[in-house]
């Protein structure tokens, strides 16, 4: 399978003081970016792997549909839910998918506000993934209610009972938060797509393609008067989506935290859920992007540094999640509440200990390998780790939901929860929905934001000649160990780890440096 491990075209993972690393390979131009990204969509024959993956995904999607129909015709009894554990797989899957849906908006909004320009190569991908994950998440509570045909009772519209929804309930907060999140994410994604759809329209060779891309492109003509408002609206949406993304998983955690159940009734839940969501979401982005950049030849745009940056975020958020697990235990003991203490001891050493230790192994221990630079810059090693993280994050929700519900205050109402085959196949089927949507996306829409990636290329900057010595994203990049140490010696960096440049070195910024920041 050598085609799955082509060499990296550039090693931009090391730090050079005073310079920023290039985000594309040096030979890239605006034309090559357009050709590379559009080429995937315009290729009349997608790779064989795409067809195989689509076949598998469609079968799983069919399975998903069949399981839902079976459930709707038979009733919730086909699931393993029992009297204390009323939430079971459906809510575990809801929280799992909604968590995955967080990385997209994090990358597109929060990294945008922090001017993290590497986001331009991965944001389209991540936003698409967000929407598909939220779509999967939405299915589970809808079918879990049992009577899916009266779902409109959730919304403040007049119904046959002449009643309004109870806005004081966290479950309703959750519904409104997720609906808002889906709407805002869709608008954000589509807005970013408009200029790229126009590119596809203008390159279209057939009338059908021209019309199919032309209608959603809305007649975009790259007018700078339009770009002015477009950029402002984009910034506003990023500013609005940032508190939104933090609120959504906080609200999801309120479903648990506002109840009285030991193991749920904790104030750490909102930040802990948000950290976990970012962690799991990035793991899913990496899981999709590592094979995609190999299959579609995108290594010159999604460089090894992009992978490394995502791995660093996973190391951080994974450790935050590990801290939250430890803190939960500490508070359970420190509170002196015997129910709380029991809930946590039961998690780690009770009947669900197997799930707990899978969670700890995948979420806390696995990402620690990313401390090693060598490992976090090896894409296929990282692929294995992020696959484990996805498993671990699913088990986190399983542990939280099932252990607390199955053993609450009264031992007489304790019961062990076992999922049925319908539970398992429905979970499997939801991956079918997710991957079908994702595969259609990579086939028919530009998976890299072309207009955005062009803004971080050297040629986009009119002043490039003035501050070239500062090497903002370009310049010659020494490849390999020997060349790097030669370069370090040439600018006066002798000792290893010494990153402070001597005064007057050629990489010092000139005194009258243009202080304007390039905004993307």
């Amino acid at each position, binding site marked *: 399978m050598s085609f799955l491990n082509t060499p990296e075209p550039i090693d931009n993972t090391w730090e050079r003081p005073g310079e920023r690393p290039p985000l594309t390979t040096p030979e890239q131009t605006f034309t090559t970016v357009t050709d590379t990204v559009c080429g995937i969509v315009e290729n009349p024959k997608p790779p064989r792997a795409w067809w195989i993956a689509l076949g598998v995904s469609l079968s799983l999607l069919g399975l998903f549909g069949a399981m839902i129909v079976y459930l709707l015709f038979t009733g919730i009894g086909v699931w393993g839910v029992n009297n204390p554990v009323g939430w079971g797989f459906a809510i575990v899957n809801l929280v799992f998918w909604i968590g995955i849906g967080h990385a997209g908006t994090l990358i597109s909004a929060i990294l945008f506000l922090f001017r993290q320009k590497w986001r331009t190569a991965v944001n389209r991908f991540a936003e698409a993934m967000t929407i598909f994950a939220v779509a999967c998440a939405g299915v589970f509570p809808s079918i879990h209610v049992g009577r899916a045909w009266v779902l409109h009772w959730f919304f403040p519209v007049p119904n046959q009972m002449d009643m309004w929804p109870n*806005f004081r309930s966290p479950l309703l907060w959750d519904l*409104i938060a997720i609906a808002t999140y889906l709407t805002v994410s869709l608008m954000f994604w589509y807005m970013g797509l408009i200029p790229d759809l126009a590119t596809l329209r203008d390159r279209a060779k057939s009338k059908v393609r021209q019309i199919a891309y032309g209608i959603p492109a809305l007649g975009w003509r790259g007018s700078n008067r339009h770009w002015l408002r477009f950029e*402002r609206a984009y910034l506003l949406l990023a500013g609005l989506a940032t508190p939104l993304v933090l609120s959504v998983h906080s*609200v999801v955690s309120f479903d648990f935290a506002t109840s009285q159940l030991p193991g749920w009734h904790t104030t750490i839940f909102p930040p802990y859920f948000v950290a976990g969501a970012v962690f799991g979401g990035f793991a899913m982005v990496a899981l999709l992007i590592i094979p995609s950049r190999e299959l579609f030849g995108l290594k010159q745009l999604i460089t090894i540094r992009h992978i490394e940056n995502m791995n660093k975020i996973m190391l951080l958020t994974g450790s935050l999640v590990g801290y939250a697990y430890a803190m939960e235990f500490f508070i359970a003991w420190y509170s002196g509440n015997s129910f709380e203490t029991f809930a946590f001891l039961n998690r780690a050493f009770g009947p669900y200990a197997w799930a707990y230790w899978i969670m700890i192994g995948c979420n806390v221990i696995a990402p620690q390998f990313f401390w090693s630079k060598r490992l976090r810059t090896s894409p296929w090693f990282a692929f294995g780790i992020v696959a484990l993280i996805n498993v671990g994050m699913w088990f986190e929700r399983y542990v939280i939901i099932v252990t607390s519900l199955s053993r609450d205050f009264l031992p007489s109402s304790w019961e062990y929860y076992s999922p049925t085959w319908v539970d398992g196949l429905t979970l499997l089927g939801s991956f079918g929905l997710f991957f079908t949507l994702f595969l259609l996306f990579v086939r028919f829409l530009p998976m890299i934001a072309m207009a955005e990636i062009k803004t971080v290329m050297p040629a986009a900057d009119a002043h490039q000649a003035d501050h070239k010595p500062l090497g903002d994203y370009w310049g010659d990049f020494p490849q390999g160990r020997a060349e790097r140490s030669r370069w370090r010696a040439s600018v006066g960096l002798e000792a290893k780890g010494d990153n402070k440049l001597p005064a007057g070195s050629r990489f010092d910024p000139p005194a009258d440096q243009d202080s*304007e920041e390039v905004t993307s």
Partner: protein
Amino acid sequence: MSAVTPWGLLAEFEDVPSLLHASQAVREAGYTRWDAHTPFPVHGLNDAMGLAPTRLPLVVFAAGLTGCSSFLLLQWWTNAVDYAFNISGKPFFSIPANIPVTFEGTILLAAITAFVGMLVANKLPHWYHPVFKSSRFARATNDRFFISIERADPSFDPVATRSLLEAAGAVVVEELED
């Protein structure tokens, strides 16, 4: 077929510096009905064209306030006035229990306004435009930069405007029909 009416001129530029230079020249020559077309937002072009900032943020702020107050009002009216029902002794209306929905409503209305407001202010969708008649213009969404000047501009002169664009570094200047 009706007779073609000339619409204006379209000039093509090869790179960002020459586009910025030319935009400055066109603005200084006093043109008002003109535009630049670029494949991505070019930093510094708004200043070179002398464009005023958009009022979109104010509209979005107003929409946020509307969302905040209307969702608060909705919760109060439905749960405390129109059909007050007692749930485990909780107050019919209290600010803390109603904050999450109010917050989401604020964001929802503000975000929809930012998106729709951008489209409305830009007069999009607008599927027909004279610039699309030029075969060169397909590169405006790829790797080339364009300036279009309308005939309706008071300073427009078929000869003088063309030579202005050529002097500013345009590689090609062509006539467009409406």
